[in-house]
């Protein structure tokens, strides 16, 4: 096996140092581009990953009652007829809504859960350690998101919170726990309590629910079941998990559009560098190639040397850029860029993006930048080394 020509690599490094400032500038621009592109992709990928995880745990079908285009509470006894539809495994009424906390000017998402609803019980158990469901039911207590906890503490509600019922009376609910921070994106503004407590606060009759969720084990039957429910209760809106996925995806895509703009700008800048490289070598570079050719370097040697130069610049920029972007996204929590996804609500999410190393993104970014840069360096050198050496060295 031929050993690597270290002298050629050393010559390439020296050659880079000969045009130190120009190359430092290229490394800085290249690194910045990688940081921007990689951060965009990593934030998007991490959020998509987190959303998919959340969406996958959602019920298969949601049923809401609609009148004059507005949502109304739905009768709980509709569950019995829905359960009779073939393919339906479960149908459960849910209670949830929003509570406006005037002191802070924010809305909390309030969810009432039934301890017999395994779907929620299991999910919650995985989210809140040492959660006692029976205690939650008995003592009018709740589990809250980190954002809620912070807002409540600002108003000196450390152990409990006083809800104001629609009739103006007060309902005190104790804080039994706080959601883990790694699910904070969705659970940040949540208050989870028993259905009893929820109904008590919002004064909702036991015969009514906010919506009904339906479980269908055979995923291919979901659209058919949804249609049957709609036919059974024409005054309802029937949403499938897929519908929700699409609407989430739409919001996500809109935000990704802003990132796409940044992406296009970054790529555009990169191609300006590439164009500059492709547009040819300066007279000093041409002369140097001429000298090397005259003293016995073959075209292949020159292209190899150029390859090493471009490889050194692009690999250093890529690795540094990629590492900075990991630090920026997962350690610094992506300042500036995160605002695009987060919005500016008062209940700011404690943005802990889940670390999700996407090999495809790394490979795509690598292929999008490194080989193009190397090519942009080699092509003009190839053109220069194929011209008459005589002309160059004179």
């Amino acid at each position, binding site marked *: 096996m031929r*050993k690597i020509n270290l002298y050629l690599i050393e010559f390439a490094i020296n050659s880079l*140092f*000969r045009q130190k400032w120009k190359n430092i500038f290229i490394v800085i621009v290249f690194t910045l581009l990688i940081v921007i592109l990689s951060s965009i992709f990593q934030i998007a990928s991490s959020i998509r990953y987190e959303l998919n995880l959340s969406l996958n745990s959602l019920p298969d079908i949601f049923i809401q009652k609609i009148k004059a285009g507005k949502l109304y509470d739905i009768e709980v006894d509709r569950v019995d007829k829905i359960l009779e539809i073939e393919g339906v495994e479960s149908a459960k009424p849910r209670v949830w809504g929003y509570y406006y906390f005037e002191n802070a000017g924010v809305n909390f998402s309030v969810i009432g859960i039934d301890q017999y609803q395994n779907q929620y019980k299991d999910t919650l158990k995985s989210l809140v350690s040492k959660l006692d469901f029976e205690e939650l039911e008995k003592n009018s207590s709740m589990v809250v998101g980190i954002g809620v906890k912070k807002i409540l503490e600002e108003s000196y509600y450390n152990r409990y919170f006083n809800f104001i019922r629609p009739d103006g009376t007060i309902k005190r609910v104790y804080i039994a726990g706080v959601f883990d921070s790694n699910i904070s994106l969705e659970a940040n503004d949540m208050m989870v309590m028993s259905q009893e407590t929820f109904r008590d606060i919002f004064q909702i009759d036991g015969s009514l629910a906010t919506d009904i969720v339906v479980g269908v084990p055979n995923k291919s039957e979901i659209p058919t079941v949804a249609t049957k429910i709609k036919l059974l209760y024409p005054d309802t809106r029937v949403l499938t998990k897929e519908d929700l996925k699409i609407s989430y995806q739409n919001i996500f895509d809109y935000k990704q559009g802003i990132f796409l703009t940044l992406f296009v700008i970054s790529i555009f800048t990169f191609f300006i560098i590439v164009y500059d490289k492709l547009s040819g070598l300066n007279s000093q570079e041409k002369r*140097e190639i001429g*000298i090397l050719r*005259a003293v016995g*370097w073959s*075209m292949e040697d020159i292209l190899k040397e150029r390859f090493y130069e471009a490889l050194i610049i692009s690999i250093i920029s890529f690795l540094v850029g990629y590492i900075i972007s990991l630090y920026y996204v997962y350690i610094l929590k992506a300042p500036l860029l995160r605002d695009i996804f987060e919005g500016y609500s008062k209940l700011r999410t404690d943005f802990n993006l889940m670390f999700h190393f996407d090999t495809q993104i790394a490979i795509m970014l690598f292929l999008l930048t490194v080989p193009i840069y190397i090519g942009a360096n080699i092509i003009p050198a190839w053109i220069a080394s194929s011209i008459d050496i*005589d002309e160059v060295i004179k």
Partner: protein
Amino acid sequence: MINFKDVSKVYRSGNREIKALETINFQIKKGEIVLLKGVSGSGKSTILSLIAGVTKPTSGDIVVNGKRVSKLQDRFSSKFRQETIGFIFQKFNLIPNISTFDNIVVPIIPLNLDSREIEKRVKKLLKEFNLEHRRDILVKNLSGGEQQRVAICRALINTPEIIIADEPTANLDRKLSLGFIEILKSLKDKTVIIATHDPIFFNLDIINRVIEIENGKVKKDKKTPNRNK
């Protein structure tokens, strides 16, 4: 050693044709020191480029050391230059922002030689040309004479059989030019071809032969009897 047979070279610039050489014939034997004499534009440098395989003749045949350089493909002519030719250019053509050492090793970098071998060769040349103390200095910071010695070291690093020098004293004062001639005297057993119109070379006793070029043709080809090497 070097055989030019009916060699012509025409440069094309757009629609214009410039005849640089017209049916040139000569032979140079091994170990000869040959002076190519002639005014600027007479075709001297073109002959050197053709010997080195840097450029190809429009017609005719050139054989150097048994190799038909006029027909060699690019990578073979590069290899040929690497193994056979040492080039000394008019403006030295050194790489200004690298050290003396790095400039000298440039021709042998592609050979991927053992580092001890490279070190040995460079050390020998630096000593021979009194450049040991300038080894790590950037070439741009050297004097004209030192730069020329570096250029000569670079031409010798690949232990070539043929040294080609194109107007080697054009950028040197008289003292430095005499220094170059002293170096020439020390180049034993090498075939040296110098293209120049500097009169300092004309009556040198180390020159075996003077070929006078005029308008791309050999005007005179005269052997000089005294060789004092």
